[in-house]
């Protein structure tokens, strides 16, 4: 009897540990903040939600570029791959903006600018993180500041009703301004008056 006791004790400890482990696993997967932030970093090609072989998976969006003629934003349509993820489509939209206009309008972003990340919160607040070239190669004028910011903000908010606010980050950080003028510390909303009628 006395020899069996340690084995039995060991079994009880092992069983207790197993139960504890199961409880921890259950707690880990069931709890959390439940406030997720979508991060559109995965490649579109590897995304099972996107299938480019079917025409119904294409979404036509409207981009806003700067016009030499009147200094206002003019629309240009473009096709992107449809996805249930607004974040993935938002990312595609900004990348299309950076490629530039196909109708001879001006892309109000310095040519070396890259999109680093695109985040979208559940509350509809998009964070567009550009590479540092957006500031380093910028013309530093009020008109240029406004064109850059609202080309991005208006394009995103016009196409996706789920995106209500847009904040612009530079090189992963919040910046005070772009070229010393427009306040980047507050989120932006859609501005109709900057679009050509």
């Amino acid at each position, binding site marked *: 009897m006395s020899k069996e006791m340690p084995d039995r004790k060991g079994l009880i400890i092992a069983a207790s540990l197993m139960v504890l482990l199961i409880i921890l696993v259950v707690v880990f997967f069931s709890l959390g903040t439940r406030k997720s932030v979508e991060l559109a970093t995965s490649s579109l090609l590897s995304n099972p939600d996107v299938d480019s072989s079917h025409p119904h998976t294409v979404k036509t969006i409207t981009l806003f570029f700067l016009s030499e003629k009147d200094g206002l934003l003019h629309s240009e349509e473009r096709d992107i791959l449809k996805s249930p993820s607004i974040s993935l489509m938002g990312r595609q939209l900004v990348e299309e903006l950076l490629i530039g206009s196909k109708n001879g309008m001006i892309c109000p972003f310095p040519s070396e600018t890259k999109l680093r990340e695109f985040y979208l919160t559940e509350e509809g607040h998009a964070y567009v993180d550009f590479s540092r070239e957006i500031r380093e190669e910028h013309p*530093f004028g*009020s008109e240029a500041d406004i064109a850059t910011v609202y080309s991005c903000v208006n394009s995103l908010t016009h196409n996706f009703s789920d995106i209500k606010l847009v904040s612009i980050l530079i090189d992963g950080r919040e910046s005070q301004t772009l*070229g010393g003028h427009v306040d980047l510390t507050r989120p*932006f909303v859609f501005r109709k008056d900057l679009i050509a009628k």
Partner: protein
Amino acid sequence: MNIFGRGFDSRRLHHIILVAKREPVKKKSLGFSYVIFIVLMFGVLAGTQERPFLRVSVADSAYLSRSRNSERVPLPQRRRTVVIDPGHGGLETGAKGKFGALEKNITLSISKKLKAIIERDLAFNVELTRDKDVEVSLEQRTALANYHDAFIFISIHANSSFRKKARGPETYFLSLNATDRDARRLAYLENNESEIGDKIFGQDEDDIKMILWDMAQSAYLEQSSMLADKIQDELNSLLRTKNRGVKQAPFFVLAGVACPAVLVETAFLSNADEEKKLVSEAFQRQLAQAIFRGLVRFIREYSNE
């Protein structure tokens, strides 16, 4: 600047408290540390009660010293101040023209000319946010205007665009993003405009009102629009530009200014013809005179209301 005087570093106080928590200390010295800590905390509380400006986000050191002195020294006879803000400066050169002209130099030159004209012809003090080639933060520019209880704030700039043909002057006043939070702030300020003045002199400790500081301009949008209108009208006459108008933008330097405030983009440095003009002393003087005429028209109309 802090309430303990020059030599005191608040980070040291923080460090002292952390060290007291982490390291085993002898009982006698622990008691002594608590006494010091309690005395220091009383000092902090007494200081903040007397000086509510410590909680004002846009206050700068000059503003703080004025608020302190205002308790002892009577304010001088009220002579209104116009604050002129030459855009950019120092390493922050602003826009650069094709022939090498730098925005920071042009804005300073125009601002100095405008200051001279105002001081010659009007009974106003004029303060420049910088009078030489130095970098001044946007917060400091705003704070200087509020420290002087400015009557008018004019920020002078030279524009630049991705458009090669862009030309002509533009005058901006602040636009608000119509987010819920800003809309609430605006509504509050529109109904409580007189309280802005109280906040400048640190008479009110209400937290909500203090938070409103960073959007002080919200209460002056109507006057700012009127000022922008007058200046733009004069610039259009000078440069014979008809289709350039007043514009609104969420400019950082305007948001916290508690008086009518505009940002003037005199001409485009990205346009070769306008760059040549902008570096000329004669053209800079013409621009300063046009802005001055707009200012005078605003003052006349404003005082009639």
